[in-house]
């Protein structure tokens, strides 16, 4: 058995109820490593890329990586992947938490689920045995309730579950792990719902074998020390990801009022990490075995938006339910976050759809009657709370928004589509490309649509990290110029993508020295990959997913930023600045080996060892 891996994968056909184990050759593991990279390889080899994302034949994959379960900080990540019902192209999302180490202890590196069960079921994994069980009593319950029921017999059981949004096929439905960690982007909770799979639970006693345990322990200790010494890690521990709300306002990173305003320091102070920690934090929380502990546990005890003690909002949520909606009430953001967690909805896409609605309401494109009598004025969070339930349950106007911003705008008609801020159907995360031109390129070229986590551009372009040992880069980039950004993004993708295949948290990629990560990976697997090998694995991942998207219909015409972020702001740190899209794309295409259609060239596919993709693209 290859060290670092549990040694088997699971195939589940929910139509027949058959569960069967399978293995993957080490040669494949060395090339694709794990996580969503390996998921993409399984997908292209065995499944119909043209099937509807919600059709039974479309697979849903839950994938871990070889570092998961090792105990190394930041390696409790896992990816869920398949075809996105929101975008119609390759979909993936990842989170940390508790599930993936338990899944490996239960004996599985990955799960591929097809078919659709005639009745609601959940999948149970325990020490190499997989079983399906009736979940009829759980159907209709929210994620928190479902998790409590499934953990009742044994608190050490780890749970992945969908809520009403997944059941109702909301196109941005999320999957929750133990009520604290969420697979949010690209709507894979709806794929789970389409299969009537309410939950997956795992409990195991297996132990991960490492190639060089002594060396691994030395590196794990070094990683803990690096985290302790890092100001970035200290900031994340003290304030969570929401520290970026305050600093980002100075650099033009934070989107305001559906990307139409450039600066509002009152909002960033009232919504930022210092306020979140000072007023509502009860404790910091860590994913399994992580010594960084960036997660917030918060409670709102007073006022109209009281919550139970639970996971606090990330920066992205403080943007999507805060600045984007012109809402400076952090308690309302915390409440909206709790509701999205319970219903199971991606807070970025959900908040963005509501921001779109508020803009259209202000313009008169939507009337009060169109939105079920709600007053969708900017900042009116009293209207947002009931709207969240309407979206999750597909009631009234909520049914329109449940299709996602782009589809909702198409249904609303008039000029509504002009107000949607997306790439390839995925709403932009809360980082403005007018403040950081490289991020704009990364949005255009990320394989799941506009994304801040399919690369490490957030760290490199914003100056959180510098890795001259990996590639030629500067300590400090001016965000508002497009010079030198194509090569920066290309390199930042090739390295950052490893977060998805090794299953290591992006924050740890930012904080730890690349040598520490490489050496720990090698100590666990014995693969002895060099930086060159690892960066090539990153290139292979990107190119494979791009090829899958090409086969699903993506071309160069789709590599485009929305009009809103190509319109200069009149205020704030990024006033007057827009990315030079043409230049960025031209330079990037050359680096990536893409032809004028946006397809990887044959020689690039040969160079990266992707013959299956080559034969499908050039048959």
């Amino acid at each position, binding site marked *: 058995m290859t060290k670092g891996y549990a040694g088997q994968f699971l195939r589940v056909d929910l139509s027949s109820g058959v569960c069967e184990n399978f293995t993957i050759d080490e040669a494949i593991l060395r090339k694709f490593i794990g996580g969503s990279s390996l998921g993409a390889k399984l997908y292209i080899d065995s499944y119909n890329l043209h099937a509807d994302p919600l059709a039974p034949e479309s697979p849903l994959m839950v994938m871990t990586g070889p570092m998961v379960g090792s105990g190394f900080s930041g390696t409790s990540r896992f990816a869920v992947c398949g075809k996105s019902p929101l975008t119609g192209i390759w979909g993936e999302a990842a989170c940390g938490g508790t599930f993936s180490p338990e899944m490996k202890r239960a004996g599985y590196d990955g799960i591929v689920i097809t078919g659709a069960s005639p009745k609601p079921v959940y999948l149970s994994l325990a020490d190499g045995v997989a079983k399906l069980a009736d979940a009829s009593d759980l159907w209709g319950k929210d994620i928190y309730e479902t998790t409590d029921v499934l953990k009742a017999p044994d608190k050490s059981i780890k749970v992945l579950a969908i809520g009403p949004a997944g059941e109702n096929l909301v196109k941005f439905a999320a999957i929750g792990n133990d009520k604290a960690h969420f697979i949010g982007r690209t709507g894979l909770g709806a794929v789970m719902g389409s299969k009537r799979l309410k939950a997956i639970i795992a409990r195991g006693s297996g132990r991960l074998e490492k190639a060089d345990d002594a060396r691994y322990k030395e590196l794990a200790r070094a990683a803990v020390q690096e985290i302790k010494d890092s100001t970035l890690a200290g900031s994340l521990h003290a304030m969570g990801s929401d520290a970026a709300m*305050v600093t980002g306002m100075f650099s033009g990173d934070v989107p305001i009022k559906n990307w139409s305003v450039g600066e509002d320091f009152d909002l960033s102070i009232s919504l930022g990490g*210092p306020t979140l*920690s000072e007023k509502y934090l009860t404790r910091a929380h860590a994913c399994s075995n992580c010594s960084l502990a960036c997660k917030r546990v918060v409670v709102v005890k007073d006022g109209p938006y009281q919550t139970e003690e639970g996971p606090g909002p990330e920066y992205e949520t403080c943007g999507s339910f805060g600045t984007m909606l012109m809402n400076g009430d952090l308690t309302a953001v915390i409440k909206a976050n709790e509701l999205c967690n319970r219903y199971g909805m991606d807070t970025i896409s959900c908040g963005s759809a509501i921001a779109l609605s508020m803009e259209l309401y202000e313009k008169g494109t939507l009337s009060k009657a169109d939105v079920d009598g709600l007053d969708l004025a900017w900042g009116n969070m009293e209207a947002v709370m009931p709207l969240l339930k309407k979206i999750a349950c597909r009631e009234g106007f909520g049914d329109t928004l449940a299709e996602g911003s782009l589809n909702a705008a198409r249904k609303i008609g008039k000029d509504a589509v002009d107000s949607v801020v997306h790439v390839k159907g995925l709403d932009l995360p809360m980082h403005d490309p007018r403040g950081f031109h490289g991020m704009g390129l990364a949005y255009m070229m990320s394989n799941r649509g506009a994304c801040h986590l399919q690369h490490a551009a957030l760290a490199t372009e914003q100056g959180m990290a510098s890795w001259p040992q990996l590639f030629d880069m500067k300590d400090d980039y001016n965000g508002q110029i497009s010079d030198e950004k194509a090569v920066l993004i290309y390199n930042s993708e090739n390295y950052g993508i490893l977060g998805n295949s090794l299953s290591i948290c992006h924050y740890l990629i930012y904080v730890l020295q690349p040598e520490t990560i490489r050496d720990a990976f090698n100590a666990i697997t014995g693969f002895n990959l060099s930086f060159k090998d690892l960066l090539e694995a990153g290139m292979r991942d990107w190119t494979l997913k791009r090829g899958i998207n090409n086969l699903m219909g993506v071309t160069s015409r789709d590599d485009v930023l929305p009009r809103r972020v190509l319109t200069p702001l009149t205020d704030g740190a990024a006033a007057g600045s827009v990315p030079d899209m043409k230049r960025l794309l031209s330079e990037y295409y050359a680096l990536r080996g893409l032809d004028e259609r946006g397809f990887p060239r044959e020689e690039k596919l040969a160079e990266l060892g992707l013959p299956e993709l080559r034969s499908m693209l050039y048959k």
Partner: protein
Amino acid sequence: MALKAFSQEWMDAWLKSIQTSQEYKEIAKEWEGSVSIIVNPDPSKGIPEPIYMWTDYWHGEAKDFHYCDKAKAESANFVMSGEYIRWKQVAKKELDSTKALMQGKLKLKGDLTYVVKHVKTVNKVVDLLAALDTVFPDD
């Protein structure tokens, strides 16, 4: 005339520019606390010994800036330390001070949450420093 970096004259000029900035007074009206700056020795760049500098700020006012000993420097509310070359980059605005902290090129001891909350104050102080006509030991 250009001022010699890390000299008392240079510190006095920096202090004066802060004291006379109305914008600083407004931005920093809630800031409380001393900040020490430690420049690690680098003989090859003309810094044979560590340099310890004391700066003090209180609700929009800046107090005296002066050299101090190691013990006093380490007693400040916020202690920032780093290599000479990094301080030079920050003072010339070639490296943003927040980025330098996040990349580990400068170290901070003190309440990081407080610093993030008042990052506008920090940026203004650095802007005023960068505006000085400065000559560095290795220029």
